[in-house]
C-alpha cells in the first residue's frame, strides 16, 4: 500500500499506457516517412507522380511496425499485439471497402450517361449504334420474375406451413428440410440447364421461352422462401395458437387468421429479398429464356430478354459502336442495382413498421 502511495506521482492507472494522441502522431510520422521516401527515391526524370496506392500500403506497414515497437517498449508485448490486431482488423475493413466503393462509384457515374427517357421507353429493335433502350429487357424481367413469384410463393409458403404446423418433425418433414438445403446450393446455371432440358423435352429441342426462365428462377426462389417463412412461422408464439383453439377455431382458420397475419411482415420481407435475389440472376435466363432485341410479352412463345442478360450481351457483343453498347450496359447495371436496393430497403421498412412488437 505504501509503495503505491509513494509511486503514484501522477495517475497510477494511466502509467505504462500510450497517451491517446500517440496513435495519431505515429500515423502522421509513418505517412510523412513513406511520402518523403517515395518523393526522394523517385528515379530521375520519372514523369508520373507519386503512386498514391503504394504510399498508402507503405504507410500502413510503417505505421504497424512503429506502433508495435513503441507499444512494446512502453506497454509490453500483450498490448503491442492487441494494438497490431486492431490495426489488422481495421485494415481488413478498409481493404474490403475499396472494391465495393469502386464498384458503386463506377456503376453510378458511368450508368448515369444513358440513364434517360429513351432507355426506359425503347427496345433494341433495329438499333445498331447509339440510341435504343432496355424497355424490352425490363418488361421481360418483370414478367419472368412475376411468374416465378407466382409459382414460388404458394409452394414455398405452403411447404413452410406444413413443416411448422402439420409435420411434427416426421420423416417427410426431415427429408423436405434436407432437400431444401440441397436446393439452396444448386448453382444458378444448373437451374437454367434443368429448365432448358424440361422444356426441350416438352416443346421440342432448342426451345427458349419466358416460362422456362420463370421455372428456372422458381427452382432458385422456392428454397429461399421456404427457409425464411419457416423461420418466421416458428417465431409465432404458441399461446396465440392455443388461445385460438380454445375458442373453438378450426386449425386451418387458426393458421389463416392468427398465425399468418402475425408472421406476415417477416414473410413479406423474406419474399421481397427472394425477389431481389432472383431478379439479378443472369445465367439461368441466358440458358432457358435466351436473348432478344424485341419486345415479347408472351412468356409461352419465343425468346424473352431480361435486364441482366441485356447488360451481359451489351458487354460481350459490342457492336459497331462499342461505346454506345458499354454505356447501355452500365445504365442497365445501374437500373438493376437500384431495383435490387429498393427491394432490400423496402423489405427492411416492412419489418420495421409492421412487425409485431413483443414486450420491450
Amino acid at each position, binding site marked *: 500500500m505504501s509503495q503505491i502511495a509513494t509511486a503514484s506521482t501522477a495517475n497510477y492507472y494511466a502509467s505504462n499506457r500510450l497517451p491517446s494522441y500517440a496513435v495519431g502522431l505515429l500515423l502522421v510520422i509513418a505517412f510523412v516517412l513513406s511520402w518523403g521516401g517515395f518523393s526522394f527515391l523517385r528515379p530521375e526524370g520519372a514523369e508520373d507522380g507519386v503512386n498514391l496506392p503504394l504510399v498508402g500500403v507503405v504507410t500502413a506497414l510503417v505505421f504497424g511496425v512503429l506502433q508495435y515497437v513503441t507499444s512494446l517498449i512502453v506497454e509490453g508485448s500483450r498490448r503491442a499485439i*492487441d494494438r497490431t490486431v486492431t490495426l489488422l482488423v481495421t485494415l481488413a475493413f478498409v481493404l474490403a471497402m475499396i472494391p465495393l466503393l469502386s464498384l458503386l462509384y463506377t456503376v453510378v457515374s458511368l450508368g448515369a450517361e444513358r440513364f434517360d427517357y429513351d432507355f426506359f421507353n425503347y427496345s433494341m429493335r433495329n438499333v445498331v449504334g447509339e440510341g435504343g433502350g432496355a424497355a424490352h429487357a425490363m418488361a421481360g424481367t418483370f414478367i419472368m420474375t412475376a411468374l416465378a413469384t407466382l409459382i414460388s410463393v404458394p409452394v414455398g409458403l405452403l411447404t413452410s406451413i406444413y413443416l411448422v404446423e402439420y409435420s411434427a418433425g416426421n420423416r417427410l418433414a426431415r427429408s423436405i428440410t434436407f432437400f431444401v438445403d440441397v*436446393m439452396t446450393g444448386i448453382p444458378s*446455371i*444448373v437451374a437454367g440447364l434443368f429448365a432448358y432440358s424440361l422444356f426441350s423435352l416438352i416443346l421440342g429441342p432448342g426451345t427458349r421461352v419466358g416460362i422456362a426462365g420463370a421455372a428456372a428462377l422458381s427452382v432458385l426462389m422456392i428454397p429461399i422462401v421456404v427457409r425464411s417463412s419457416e423461420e418466421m412461422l416458428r417465431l409465432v408464439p404458441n399461446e396465440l395458437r392455443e388461445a385460438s383453439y380454445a375458442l373453438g377455431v378450426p386449425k386451418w382458420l387458426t393458421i389463416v387468421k392468427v398465425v399468418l397475419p402475425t408472421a406476415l411482415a417477416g414473410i413479406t420481407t423474406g419474399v421481397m429479398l427472394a425477389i431481389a435475389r432472383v431478379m439479378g440472376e443472369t445465367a439461368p435466363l441466358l440458358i432457358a429464356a435466351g436473348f432478344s432485341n424485341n419486345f415479347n410479352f408472351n412468356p409461352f412463345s419465343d425468346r424473352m430478354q431480361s435486364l441482366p442478360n441485356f447488360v451481359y450481351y451489351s458487354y460481350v457483343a459490342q457492336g459497331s459502336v462499342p461505346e454506345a453498347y458499354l454505356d447501355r450496359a452500365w445504365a442497365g447495371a445501374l437500373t438493376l442495382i437500384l431495383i435490387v436496393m429498393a427491394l432490400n430497403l423496402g423489405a427492411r421498412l416492412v419489418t420495421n413498421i409492421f412487425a409485431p412488437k413483443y414486450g420491450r
Partner: protein
Amino acid sequence: MAKPASSPSSTPKVTQRAADRIFAGSARGAGITILVTLAAVTIFLLAEGAPALTADPEDIAILDGQPFLAYVTPLVFGTLWAAALALLMAFPVAVGIALFISHYAPRKIAVPLGYVLDLLAAVPSVVYGLWGGTILAPGMRPLYGWLEENLGFIPLFAGPASGTGRTIFTAALVLAVMVLPIITAVSREVFLQTPKLYEEAALALGATRFEMIRMVVLPGGRAGVISASMLGLGRALGETLAVAMVLSATGVITVNLISSVNPSTIAANVALSFPEASGLNVNALIASGLILFAITLIVNSIARWIINRRKDFSGAN
C-alpha cells in the same frame, strides 16, 4: 351446447372439417412438390447429360475429338482453382470485417455498416462481372507486370504477364469480392452471439481485447465461420457470369496466375458455349453442369455436416 360431452371416458373425437383436410393436404402437397422438383432436376440432367457420355466423341464438336473426361478435367480444375483462390483471399478479410463490425467499430457505425454489407450481398453478379471486366482487369495490369519481373521465378507468377489483365487471378479477385459480404454477414451474426457475460469475464480478468476475442469469441464462432466460408465457396463454385465476363479462357491446366492462358470454369464455359450449341454439344454441356451440381452438393453437405456436428455449441444454425 346444451348437450354434455358424449363420452368423457374415450378420447374426444376431433371433427375433421373438409376445409381442414383440404388445407393440410395442399400444405403436404407443396412439400412433396419440392421433393419431386429436386428429383426432376436430377433426372432431367441425367437424361440429357447421358448421351454425351455414351456417344462417340468424334460426333460432339466442342469435345474436339477427345473423350468427355479429357474435356471436362481442365474445367473442373479451373472451377476448384478459382474458387479456392477466391476463398483464400476473402476468408481472412471477411473474418476481419466481421470482427470489426461486431467488436471494434462503435455501435453507431456498426449497424449501418451491416446494412451496407447486406445490400452488397444482393448486387447481381452481372454487375460484378461488368466492373471486373472493364475496371478491375485493366487496373491489375501494372501489378502483373511487376509480379512477372520480380517474382517470375515462382511458378504462380511465371508469366508472360497478360496484356489485358483478364487472368484467373482477376477472376478470383472478383469472386472474392462477391463472396466477401456473404461470409461476413454470417460470421458477424455468429460473433455477435457470443455470451456477453463471457466477454466481460475475460476483460475483467485483465485480458486485452484481442485476448478476449481469441479465447472467447473465436472458439464459440469457429463452426459458424467455417460453414459461412463453405457457403461462400459454394457460391464461388457456381458463379457464372462474373467469371465468363472477366476471364479469357483457353481450357488448359496451369497454376500460372498472371498469364493470358487460363483454365476456364464449368459454369463460365456453359454460359459462353450454350447459346451457340446444338445437338450433342448441348448434352455435353449439360453433363458438365451435372458435375458442377455434384461438386457444389458435396461442398454444401460438408458445410451442413459441420454445422450439425457443432449445433449444440454455437448459434450457427
